[in-house]
Every structure is written in C-alpha cells, then in structure tokens.
C-alpha cells in the first residue's frame, strides 16, 4: 500500500522554483533513498513533505489523507517524523531531546520509547544529562535518529544522515539504520548524496534540478552508465 504519495509537486522559495512536477511514492515498510547532488532539491522536497515549504502545485497524500495544506506540527502528529541535517537541539540535554522527540506521544509511551532508544544506542545512556552540544558529530546523529524514532512514526524522513560525519561514523549510522529496518520495518525516506546508503534502499529516486530523472532498484541503477559516472565516479 502506498503510504506517502507526492504527486506532481512544485515548490520553491519566493521567485526561485526548485521542484518541477516532482512525484515520488513510498510504500508501507519500504526504505526509499532519494539520491541527488547538492542543489538538486532533495532538502526542498523533504521540507515540502513535512510542511516547512509550501507546495504551490500538486498534492501530498499521506496514509490516504491529503495533507498538502496542513501545518508541520499537525503532519508530525499524523505520523511523519523528520530529521533535519542538524538532527538535535544542541542546548537541550540528551534526555530532553528524546522527550522532545516523543512530544506528540503520552508520557508512558515516551518513557518506554526512551528505554528502547537507550537499548539501541547504549552510548547515549551514559550521556543522558549532558547537553547535546557536547556530543561528537556521530553521537549527535545517533541521538537525532533516536529522537526521530521517539514518536513511533509511520514514516521516518531523514535529510542527509551522513552529512558532517567521518566515513567511520557514516558506516555506523548505516549499520544502525539497517538493524533498525530489519527489526522494526519502518517506512523510510532518506535523502542522501552518499551512495553507501544505497545498500539500504529497496527503491531509489534520483533527483536532478528538481526533477526525478531515475526510478528503480539498486541493480537497475548500477546498470545505468550515465548515473554510474555521476554518482560512483567510475569512468570507462
């Protein structure tokens, strides 16, 4: 079943249009990776989905409901969780960040989810009362993922979980997401320019200058010469 459907959406900032009739679909329990270079419109597309950027044309349908006109906080309460590149609130403690992530849930759920989060991310438990600002970049992303999971969302929308991380931590983030996906099967939409994330994907979209230029599986992508040059840097 289609969980999230973005239908011919156009959006941008003032006079600058970024998305041009962009359409993507995320099915239930599916992990979709949105690949694109800087400036391709990945972030704008995600921000349009969560409601931080207004769609000037087209529809966003989530769980059978047209959510195009809803405010971001309402969309979150409908079950979309969004992790920005920043991922956490630096001035709040680890625990407060998690609580904030579970804001739309009741307190018992929040406590239960926090315990679960500490299970997944044992590092975080030791730093519970520390401010997020004092964490390393990798730990911050982990906290971001944990925080995003706190609301027990129907779909996880993540904007460049690899940004600002060393290759070692990128690997760790991918491992964690893989484990999470295998155990919980959440629907995920991950915007990335790092091809290492393709391992996770069941479906890939490539976004270029605000338009979807490729849709398909990892194998189909690897067979496509032009794309291979752009993203894998392999010439032949």
């Amino acid at each position, binding site marked *: 079943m289609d969980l999230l459907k973005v239908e011919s959406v156009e959006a941008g900032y003032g006079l600058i249009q970024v998305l041009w009739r962009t359409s993507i679909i995320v099915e239930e329990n599916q992990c979709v990776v949105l690949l694109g270079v800087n400036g391709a419109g990945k972030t704008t597309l995600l921000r349009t989905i*969560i409601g*931080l950027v207004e769609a000037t044309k087209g529809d966003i349908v989530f769980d059978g409901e047209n959510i195009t006109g809803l405010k971001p906080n309402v969309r979150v309460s409908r079950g979309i969780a*969004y992790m920005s590149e920043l991922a*956490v609130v630096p001035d*709040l403690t680890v625990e407060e960040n998690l609580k*904030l992530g579970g*804001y739309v849930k009741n307190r018992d759920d929040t406590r239960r989810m926090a315990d679960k989060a500490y299970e997944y991310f044992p590092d975080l438990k030791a730093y519970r009362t520390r401010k997020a600002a004092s964490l390393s970049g990798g730990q911050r992303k982990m906290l971001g993922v944990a925080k995003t999971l706190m609301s027990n969302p129907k779909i996880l929308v993540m904007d460049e979980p690899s940004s600002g991380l060393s290759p070692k931590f990128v690997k760790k983030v991918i491992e964690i997401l893989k484990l999470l996906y295998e155990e919980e099967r959440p629907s995920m939409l991950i915007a990335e320019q790092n091809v290492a994330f393709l391992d996770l994907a069941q479906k890939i979209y490539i976004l270029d200058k605000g338009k979807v230029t490729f849709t398909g599986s990892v194998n189909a992508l690897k067979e496509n010469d032009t794309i291979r040059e752009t993203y894998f840097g392999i010439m032949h």
Partner: protein
Amino acid sequence: MLSKYYSSLGAIFVIIFIFVTLPFVYNNQSFLFNMMMYLALAEGLNIIYGFTGYLPFGYVGFFGAGAYGASIVIMFLRISPFLAVLAGGIAAVIIGIILFPLLRLSGAYFAIANLAASQALYYLVANPNLQKITQGPYGIDLSSVYNANASYYLMLGVLVFSMLLVLYMRKTDFGLSLLAIKEDRVTAALAGINIVKTRSIAWMLSAFVAGLCGAVFAWFTAVFYPSTVFNLNVSVFTIVFVLFGGMGTIVGPLLGTLILYSMYNFIGISTPEYFQLFYGLLIMILVLFLPNGVVSILQHWRIDVP
C-alpha cells in the same frame, strides 16, 4: 520521582519562611513588600523571557493594567480586594491577548513594540477624558479598603504562585516545548509542537503574574498615580534582576532580585550617585564574565540549580 521536586520546593519554603518571619525582626514592611513584588515579577518575566526568549520591555504595562483593573473593580463594584486582585490579573491577561500580534515580531523589534504598547496604555489610562473611569492623571485612592497586613500576605501568596508556575514549567513537557521553541522554532514545530498556541499560553501566564503583582501593589499602596504603576523602571529593574540571577531557573531570578534590590535599597537611596556607578559596573561585569547570570557559577560547579 518526587525527589526531583525537592530542591525546588525547598527554595520555595525558604522564601515563605523568610517573608513570614522577617517582619518580626526587620520593621520595614514596605521594603519587604517591594522585595516580594520584584521577586514575583522576576519569576513572571522569567516565564516569557527565560523560556521563550521574548524580551518584554513593556512588562510594566501588565503591572499597570493589573493595578488599574483591580482598582476600578474595587471602586465601582465594591467587591473584596482579594477578588479584585484576581480581576487585576485577568485585566492583564486581556491586555496580553490584545497584544498577541506582537509575538510575531522577534528580538529587538518585539522589545520596542512591547515598550510602545505599555506607554500607549499609560497614556490611555492617564487621559483626563477618562476621568470617570480611571480618574485620569489624578490617581487612584483606595484608602477605604487599605489593609497593609492582608495585602502583604497576599503578595506572598502571589510570589509562591509565581514560583510554582516556574517549577511546573521546569518539570513538564510544556516548559520543554517552550525551551525548544526558544532554541530552534523549526525543530520545535517538527517535534509536533504548536508554536503559536504554546507561546501564547506562556505570554498570558507571564501577563497574569504581572497583573496580580500590580493589583496587590495597588491595594498595598492605596494611593497612586498612573506614572507610579506604569513607571518604566519596573520593567528595567525586573529584566536586570532576571538577567543577573540567571533566567530559565527558579532560583536565578530569586538570587538576582535579593542581591540587586537589597543593594538598591541600601546604597541606592542614601547615595544615588554611587549607586548608578555601582550598578553600571555590575552590569558590565555581568555581561562580560557571566552572560548566563549568577546561577551559571553554580552550574559550572556542576550543582543542579532548580
């Protein structure tokens, strides 16, 4: 999980103890009353400034609205001053609701607009054409209901209420959501927080506390003029006290007010010229070395400040 409340409740009991016993040893009720009033105002300002980052330079507007709201109710309806104080708080909340659009501004723009709004209210109240309602510039006389002791203890009640409010905000999701808004509005919205609603509630609570303070002040003072209760010094003092102590905590505003207001009374009135110098230096030192207030010293020593 009650233990996390102990240190905060402890602070509140210390305050109650001080202001119940001090009148027996230190016979200056007016000073003690004003001290409590500034403590409560500091906690009230803490609600909006400490938790949301909006700097209300016109905070005195709510104070004046409370004073006049209560006085008008006493003069025209002849109801008990206790009820009138509540009416004063509500009057301030109504002003707060009228000023909702100001919350769309931020930073210095908000501070200036709020300042202007409080002065507009001052000129409205002091308008001689409204003499039948507000007595215009000629001031209010409540000497028929004057009761120094009752109003003293009512002020203590308002102070305790304001501290409990801040305690509530420190310990619940409501306070957390405000802090999230202050740090990063986008992230807050993405946590599912209704930003407009949340900050409006904080704004009204903050106005309510100032309104209660103004109303009790009116009762305690009994005779006052518009310029007394719309005096900008009330805003400035309160802001400096909160900044000095450290915002966002219960103890910070208390410390700031206790230290600075005592100082103001002991050297400010006898030698005002030195006082200005001293205050100025203190604020400079504060900005340079302790931008997060006195409590940041304690926090630096890893003491959990309630």
